[in-house]
């Protein structure tokens, strides 16, 4: 019998105790009936949806999944890990699917070593009541090997390299890894100089923290691969900030002085090299000039000597006369005094006559005074 027929049967031969209430009660019965039917379908749909939801599952591209059948991971060696795609499993409670974001890089930040971190969680003191001290309840910080105090904010980036170990070894991965990160920071800070940690060797300091946490995670077989430990912030406490800034200033000053000195050194050295090269070059020139001049003289001498050997007088006289001709031809002032064997003549020469001298301003430019005999004048007497 179909449902509409049933409905008709209900509606048709039903007894009618009260004719006035009959339509109302019929409507009520029909409404209840409809409600129950709808509820039945809804329950069925929900059950089906639940079964489908737990039987078919999609693993997105950044995840992998483990399927546990009665608590045990299913699949042989290389099929234990379900890669991204569509997968099937038996409905709960037979199978249970555990999803792990294995391809993602996860980040854990630690502000354990920041000032006022606990205060933010509890009652933060107002700024005007900021203490000159650091309270262990309120402020976090790192102690360095030389007993200095530093604040720092760190980040640990990791990937899940072995999902089974990751899932089945740690109950609270984030908490445990944050603990490991803090531990590595404390352990490495405890052996570092404040200057190295804060300024001069931050990279080595960071690297040691990274190495330590890597080693610990490997030993504990946590199934994570530490990608990197990052220093997000490193700062001295605000109470001593000025003193640290003074150090930086002094260091800058030192660098400036040294670089100025290096510049000076480079300049001085280059100048010296230049000067040295010039000195050597001058010596080379001297040598070459001397040798070539002497060799030319020698060659000239040899030539003249041949002629001289044949005709000494003619050769010497010709050379002398030729030289005088050339020399005296270009000389401006030439005086030739007639000399006889018994003549005595006096010749006055004005030395330093400065023919081309330009008169100084205010200088007497009148007629030249009569020449007087002074020490500047020389007397040449020709016999």
């Amino acid at each position, binding site marked *: 019998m179909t449902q509409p027929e049933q409905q008709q049967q209900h509606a048709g031969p039903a007894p009618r105790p009260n004719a006035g209430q009959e339509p109302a009660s019929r409507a009520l019965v029909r409404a209840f009936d409809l409600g129950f039917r709808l509820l039945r379908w809804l329950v069925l749909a929900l059950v089906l949806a639940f079964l489908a939801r737990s039987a078919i599952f999609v693993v997105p591209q950044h995840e992998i999944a483990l399927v546990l059948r009665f608590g045990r991971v299913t699949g042989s060696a290389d099929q234990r890990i379900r890669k991204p795609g569509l997968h099937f499993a038996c409905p709960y409670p037979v199978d249970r699917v555990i999803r792990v974001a294995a391809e993602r890089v996860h980040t854990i930040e630690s502000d354990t070593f920041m000032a006022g971190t606990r205060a933010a969680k509890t009652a933060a003191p107002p700024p005007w009541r900021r203490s000159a001290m650091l309270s262990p309840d309120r402020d976090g910080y790192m102690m360095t090997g030389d007993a200095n105090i530093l604040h720092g904010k760190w980040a640990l980036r990791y990937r899940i390299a072995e999902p089974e170990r990751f899932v089945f070894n740690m109950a609270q991965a984030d908490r445990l890894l944050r603990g490991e990160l803090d531990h590595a920071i404390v352990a490495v800070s*405890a052996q570092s100089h404040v200057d190295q940690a804060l300024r001069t060797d931050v990279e080595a300091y960071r690297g040691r923290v990274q190495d330590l946490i890597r080693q610990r995670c490997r030993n504990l077989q946590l199934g994570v691969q530490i990608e990197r430990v990052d220093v997000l912030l490193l700062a001295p406490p605000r109470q001593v900030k000025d003193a640290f800034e003074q150090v930086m200033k002094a260091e800058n000053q030192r660098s400036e002085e040294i670089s100025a000195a290096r510049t000076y050194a480079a300049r*001085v050295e280059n100048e010296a*090299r230049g000067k040295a090269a010039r000195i050597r070059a001058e010596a080379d020139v001297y040598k070459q000039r001397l040798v070539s001049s002497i060799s030319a003289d020698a060659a000239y001498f040899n030539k003249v000597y041949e002629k001289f050997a044949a005709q000494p007088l003619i050769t010497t006289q010709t050379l002398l006369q030729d030289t005088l001709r050339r020399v005296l031809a270009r000389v401006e002032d030439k005086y030739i005094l007639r000399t006889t064997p018994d003549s005595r003549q006096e010749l006055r020469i004005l030395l330093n006559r400065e023919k081309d001298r330009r008169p100084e301003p205010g200088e007497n430019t009148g007629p030249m005074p009569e020449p007087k005999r002074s020490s500047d004048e020389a007397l040449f007497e020709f016999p």
Partner: protein
Amino acid sequence: MKRKLPILLLALLIAAVFLVQQIFFIVHTASAVVVTTFGKPADAAITEPGLYLKWPRPVQKAYRFDTRIQCLEGSYEQTLTKDGKTIVATAYLGWRVDEPVKFLERVGTVAEAERSLEGLVRNYKNGVIGSHPLSHLINVDTKALRFAQIESEMLAAIQPEARARYGVEVVMLGIRKIGLPETITEAVFQRMREERRTVSERYRSEGAKEAALIRADADKRARTLLADAEASAKRIRADGDAAAAEYYATFEKNPELAMFLRKLEVLEQTLKKKATVVLGTDTEPYDLLRGAAPFAPEKK
């Protein structure tokens, strides 16, 4: 009767589910289940994953424990070191349920276990740190530092007791925080300021010193370069002079002629345009001006 059938079926289904839940239980990987019969735990826990059967309540009851590593952070409180310094330190540890039956009997829950373990950590932390000076905890000299050793000592002390008392395996332990009491930090800041001042001064004086050294070194190198250059110039000149001297032998053939030629050269080089030359008529060829005839007429 026919209409009651679905309701009956539903009731049966619910009863079956309830019964299945009561008699079957699943042991997951990395967990352990202890079954108690009338409150008495079984001799050993079930740690192998799979589906198991038990009598329904109240006959048997299954207690499930997570056997993965749990994390516990100890309290952050003051401790005295061997050399009488007060520090504040926190240790954290990773532990797991190792003997589930004992764990169920002694502590029962994770929260209770953590409370008990915290007490253990406190005791051994104070004990171990109290047997080391502060220089073993923080020191720039890594040879003198005993940080890892202190942690291992604490771990070694806690491990057997945690196992014996609570059925818990302590997997690892680490110091997560080291600090100082609030009142001491001010003194530390004062010392840090002094240290910074010293460092600043050192940098300044180092800068001046290094700059002076660099300048002095540069000056020295420059002087050396010049001195070397002078020396080699002198050698070059000497070479030149020596090479020139080889030619002097040529002039030995007739020194008078050589000197004569040299004099001519000097004459040529020294008498320039602005020179004033006074000559007597006895100087050749100006002797011609005296009317001297070089040659006597052959016929008079």
